[in-house]
């Protein structure tokens, strides 16, 4: 279904990003994984994509918060793959803490990676999308961006911002055949949500359990192929934020 397409997945070495990389590869897309630090994990994802589905897959180290570094990396991906058709902005970090005592650098780091990182990626991929007269951007936000979450003011702010970015990009780029949507996962069992196992909100999930990264990947697969859907925020949260 995505044969001949190239998908870039940031934060693709583990968790939700890894599940999305596998899913899009299974649909035939070539995969460029962007990772921050874990080269071995990223290479493993690429190897599995290539071995199990026969697609081309490569890993690229990049701090998505760095505008110039992202520009260089997108140029590298263009040289290696020819172009980009699908961009999944999944890279995200947490630096949880109470607002009243949060360090400035913890706020900045989270917003820089989660929100500005997505802007940087979109900024540098959009020229390729315009050239192709098609493009699909999927931003991984969070129910924290919809509901807020005590102890995560920086994370929630970055994810709420990502929803605004999604809708503006959707409006601005729709005339060029470029779609932009967001997925708002709830509590998904990954390394990152390890710190959330005591969160009282877990008991309020209507479906009564945490989700799996593959649940989010299914939503990404839908948005990658839903030709008339743009500006949507699709919750994959077991009903918690309805």
């Amino acid at each position: 279904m995505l044969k001949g397409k190239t998908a870039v997945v940031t934060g693709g070495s583990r968790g939700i990003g890894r599940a999305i990389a596998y899913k899009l590869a299974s649909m035939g897309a070539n995969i460029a994984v962007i990772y921050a630090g874990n080269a071995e994990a990223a290479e493993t994802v690429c190897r599995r994509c290539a071995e199990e589905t026969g697609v081309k897959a490569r890993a690229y180290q990049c701090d998505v918060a760095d505008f110039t570094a992202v520009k260089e990396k997108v140029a590298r991906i263009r040289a290696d793959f020819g172009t980009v058709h699908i961009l999944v902005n999944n890279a995200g970090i947490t630096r949880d803490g109470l607002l009243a005592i949060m360090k400035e650098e913890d706020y900045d780091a989270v917003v820089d990676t989660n929100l500005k990182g997505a802007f940087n990626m979109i900024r540098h991929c959009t020229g390729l999308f315009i050239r192709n007269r098609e493009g699909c951007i999927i931003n991984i936000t969070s129910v924290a961006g919809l509901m807020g979450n005590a102890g995560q003011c920086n994370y929630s702010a970055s994810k709420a911002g990502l929803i605004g970015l999604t809708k503006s990009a959707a409006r601005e780029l729709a005339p060029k055949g470029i779609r932009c949507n967001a997925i708002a996962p709830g509590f998904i069992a990954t390394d990152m949500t390890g710190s959330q196992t005591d969160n009282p909100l877990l008991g309020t999930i209507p479906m009564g359990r945490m989700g799996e990264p593959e649940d989010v990947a299914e939503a990404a697969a839908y948005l990658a192929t839903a030709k008339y859907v743009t500006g949507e925020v699709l919750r994959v949260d077991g009903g918690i934020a309805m």
Partner: protein
Amino acid sequence: MYFDAIAKIVAERTGCDVADIRPDSKFSELGIDSLDTVELLMNLEDEIGIEIELDHKVETIDDLDQFIQSRQG
């Protein structure tokens, strides 16, 4: 310096006569919006073999020409 190349691409894109395009022609008057100018620059990559990224809005053909020249050093 790149006027002829830009005018050629604009004419192909809009269907207007290349002779009607002047350096001070505004893109908006030619039916080309801001996002189209980004695309135009990408087409120019193929036409004249340059690779330049637009980072501000250009109003006229000459603006774009000057911008490309400034980036060509």
